[in-house]
């Protein structure tokens, strides 16, 4: 395999691992608020790596100019924090229970 193919493979595997970790966070963490951290962070970086992998593949292995994937990254970076913000606001509004060890809960009641 050429260097470029190694790079493509490495980025794809790393990206998948990050997305997997984001999903593990969704299943494993104790309450809604902590679960929200997985998809906002790990998934962003994971998808970023997948996008880079795809760009490396099409531009260097296939040899055709393709920058379309940048749009995925762009829209993702704009929408991910906003989605998280809407979800956590809804959770606060509904007064969802947070894990016992959460400190500063009274601040959320304002």
């Amino acid at each position, binding site marked *: 395999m050429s260097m470029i193919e190694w790079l493509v493979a490495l980025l794809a595997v790393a990206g998948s691992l*990050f997305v997997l*970790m984001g999903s*593990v*966070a969704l299943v*494993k*963490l*104790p*309450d809604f*608020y*902590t679960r*929200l*951290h*997985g998809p*906002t*962070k*790990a998934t*962003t*970086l994971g998808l*970023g790596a997948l996008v880079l992998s795809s760009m490396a593949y099409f531009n260097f292995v296939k040899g055709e100019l*393709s*920058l*379309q994937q*940048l*749009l995925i990254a*762009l829209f993702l*970076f*704009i929408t*991910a*924090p*906003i989605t*998280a*913000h809407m979800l*956590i*606001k809804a959770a*606060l509004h509904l007064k969802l229970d*947070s*894990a016992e*060890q*959460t*400190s*500063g*809960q009274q*601040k*959320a009641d*304002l």
Partner: protein
Amino acid sequence: MLSLKNWWPTPVRSLFLFLVWLLLNNSVALIHLFFGLLLAWLIPLLIHKFRLIQPGIKKPGVALGYGLMVLGDIIVANLQVIRLVLGPNKKLRPAFVMVPLDLTDNLAITILASTVSLTPGTVSADVLPLNAEGAEQRFLLLHVLDLADEAQLIEQVKLRYEAPLKEIF
């Protein structure tokens, strides 16, 4: 008579739309160039009247540096969050934290909130009060996955993210 400003209200936005259109089509064929130019001209023209005027970027250099710093921080934050996620749940110290804001402009606060959500183990939950009248102090409510030191976190958010944003806008 209508001036150039009426017919072509936001040149930078037009350029951005044009580039996004070409990226969407992944091609620079003549037909896409044509439609890109048409849409890049027509869309800003049609929505111009509904637009909220936002402050421009005063220091593009600082803005670029800020973007790169945030990209670096996203990688670091990810590794941290993964380590926390794989550890036992009992060791987590989740917390709500209030950060007093110096920023007053809505766009700058939005960018700060988004940055904070993408980076250091925090998700921004709310801006209080939502509509500040005059000189009222506003706060950003954060949820932190693993809080070690509240004062240190507030200082980090203020120095690392808020200070450059204050310069940019």
